[in-house]
């Protein structure tokens, strides 16, 4: 009995639970504010949705989390055989397997996040029509849920570095920034796709195509140095090019990505802000349309 009283008083010290909020409900017109504060209030829900996505993913699978490694690993094996060995694609003096795998780890995260986020709203129709919470939590949690897989695949990457005797330079300290860029890219595109998917179910069928094209438009099987010097900055319009080249620079000691990265960051920021506003604008109709 005393414990429950204690925990109640502990509850009352949480500031957000105690202020009496006033909610004003009225039709919104045109572009609405992002209202990220609301999202912050619901951060626990964001945590639980992410946790659910992770938990559910590998229930009733035999290999469980090994799937997080298998996909990029075997893609790397296939790439090494066909592009590295047979086609002799240059890999800037880095052993081809680790050259490819280092790019495949962020790529798998991005592709997975894109697919989950794109279908996330439609898949959560029963939530959207039954309870209120900031809808942004749904695609965001879908993107964040891939981070565990990323971590597992990353450990394998470290193992491979050890195997190939690659010692990272001080550039490895910038790695979190490139991970952040990968998250932001997945989220930016995911926001657009998820909101569009509510209105147009064509999106669901577009996503696999999109990722396939995107895979080849990104310097994963090859190096961005294949692109002529004067076009290389333009290549950064594909933000994943910036991410992948950043990963290689931070971990494998390739030359820094330079202006390409600046273009990528700009593109992601524009896409992300645009995606957030588009999402918020269409959000009010989700429950009626989905």
């Amino acid at each position, binding site marked *: 009995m005393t414990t*429950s009283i204690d*925990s*109640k008083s*502990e*509850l009352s010290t*949480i500031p957000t*639970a105690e202020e*009496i*909020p*006033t*909610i*004003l*409900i*009225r*039709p*919104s017109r045109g572009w609405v504010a992002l209202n990220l504060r609301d999202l912050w209030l619901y951060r*626990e*829900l964001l*945590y*639980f*949705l992410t*946790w*659910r996505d992770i*938990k*559910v993913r590998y*229930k*009733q699978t035999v290999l469980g989390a090994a799937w997080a490694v298998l996909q990029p690993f075997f893609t790397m094996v296939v790439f090494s055989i066909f592009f590295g060995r047979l086609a002799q694609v240059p890999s800037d003096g880095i052993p081809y397997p680790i050259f490819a795998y280092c790019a495949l780890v962020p790529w798998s995260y991005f592709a997975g996040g894109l697919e989950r986020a794109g279908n996330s709203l439609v898949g959560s129709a*029963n*939530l*959207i*029509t*039954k*309870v*209120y*919470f900031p809808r942004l939590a749904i695609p965001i949690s879908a993107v964040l849920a891939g981070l565990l897989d990323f971590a597992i695949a990353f450990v394998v990457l470290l193992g491979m570095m050890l195997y190939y005797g690659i010692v990272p330079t001080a550039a490895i300290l910038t790695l979190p920034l490139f991970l952040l860029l990968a998250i932001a890219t997945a989220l930016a595109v995911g926001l657009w796709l998820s909101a569009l998917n*509510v*209105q*147009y*179910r*064509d999106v669901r069928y577009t996503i696999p195509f999109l990722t396939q094209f995107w895979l080849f438009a990104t310097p994963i099987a090859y190096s961005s140095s294949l692109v002529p010097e004067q076009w290389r900055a333009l290549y950064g319009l594909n933000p994943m090019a910036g991410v992948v080249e950043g990963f290689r620079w931070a971990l494998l000691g390739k030359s820094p990505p330079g202006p390409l990265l600046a273009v990528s960051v700009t593109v992601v920021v524009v896409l992300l802000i645009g995606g957030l506003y588009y999402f918020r604008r269409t959000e*009010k*109709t989700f*429950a*009626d*349309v*989905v």
Partner: protein
Amino acid sequence: MNDVAIRVQNLSKRYRIGARQAGYSTIRETVTDLAVAPVRRLRRLGQPTPPEETIWALKDVSFEVKHGEVLGIIGRNGSGKTTLLKVLCRITEPTEGQAEIHGRVGSLLEVGTGFHPELTGRENIYLNGAILGMKRTEIHTKFDEIIEFAEIERFLDTPVKRYSSGMYVRLAFAVAAHLEPEILLVDEVLAVGDATFQKKCLGKMGDVAREGRTVLFVSHNLGAVQQLCGSVILLQSGTVVERNSPERVTSMYLSDASESADGVFDLAAHPARPQKYASIIKRIVLRSSGSSSRSFFFPDDSLVVELLLDASPPIVKPRLAVAIEDASGRRITTLASYLQQSQLPALTGRSTVTCSLPRLDLGPGRYLLSASVGTKNDGLLDSVDNAAWFEVGWRNNYGNGEPYYGVYGPVIRGSEWQRIDERSGYAGIVDDSCIDLLS
């Protein structure tokens, strides 16, 4: 300090019927529309433009709810009850008007929202709690209460997909019932689970109301509404037609004749009649003795079921039956001519047969009637399931102010109660016939 918890002003919500029916569109449709629309518009030039196909699910709804008030909202299907709750829960936006809500809102439009079948009971409690807006610490402190209420201790670590539907619903309601916002919006959640659990839910709702929290309660269960609510709003096609005491509004709702509730049911071509049967029962008319036809009765009314029959060839020694089922499809009773003492006379051509109950004695709720005609030798000749319905309203049956609620069960029986006086032994309850035996 403001004592208003919810203030709704001229709230309106419009749905585009076309868009709603088609649901989502494909880009192809949008593109073809873009291509075709200008042509169509050109062709229509000069003709009056047809009105856009929209419906107002809510129109100019205004009301106030004070802190600690329990307000019921009733109305027929499609009257806008759920839309109103959805707007207040911020699930969907209003088209016009506004609403102010002062306080933390919890909503319960459906139990088990966000339950994931692959997750265990324990995991779902946390997930569902978070979805309903509970803090993790809050769920943690109430965890034991929740599993006790749901009676699922043994299955806590079993995925809920292996739960029976009863367990599932119990767990879902248990989480929701432990939500403690200042304002609670509830839709029809009492319509789940078995009778015992429903009673428990109703009790929990009563506790919530008594704790002085503000509750908006949408339900078809008029008994529950009367039991829980301080006042009730009646919605009709999206507008508030009445706000008053539960007794007044529910009886108004029941006597409302808008749903062609005139007690006349044409069966000449009824879709529920199986092909093998001839159309003999042409019409059913419900009324009370000495009054015109209707579909709404009080428990102490008499019920007359009038069957209009067209029998060619004639039916000698007909056997007629009328079955009564409650809204959940449970058969309450069968009134059969062949279970009575005298045989009905033969039916030739058009004739009318009546079946009368001097007192209905059914609890509040909706009931369905099925009717059949047959003979002993030929079996059934015509039978129509759910051919007619009627609704029984709440009334103080015995003149002492005590209503008979729907949760008491569908059959009302008058019973005699006496206290046995210990000093005089059995004398207190024996009646005349027993005295004869004793003496």
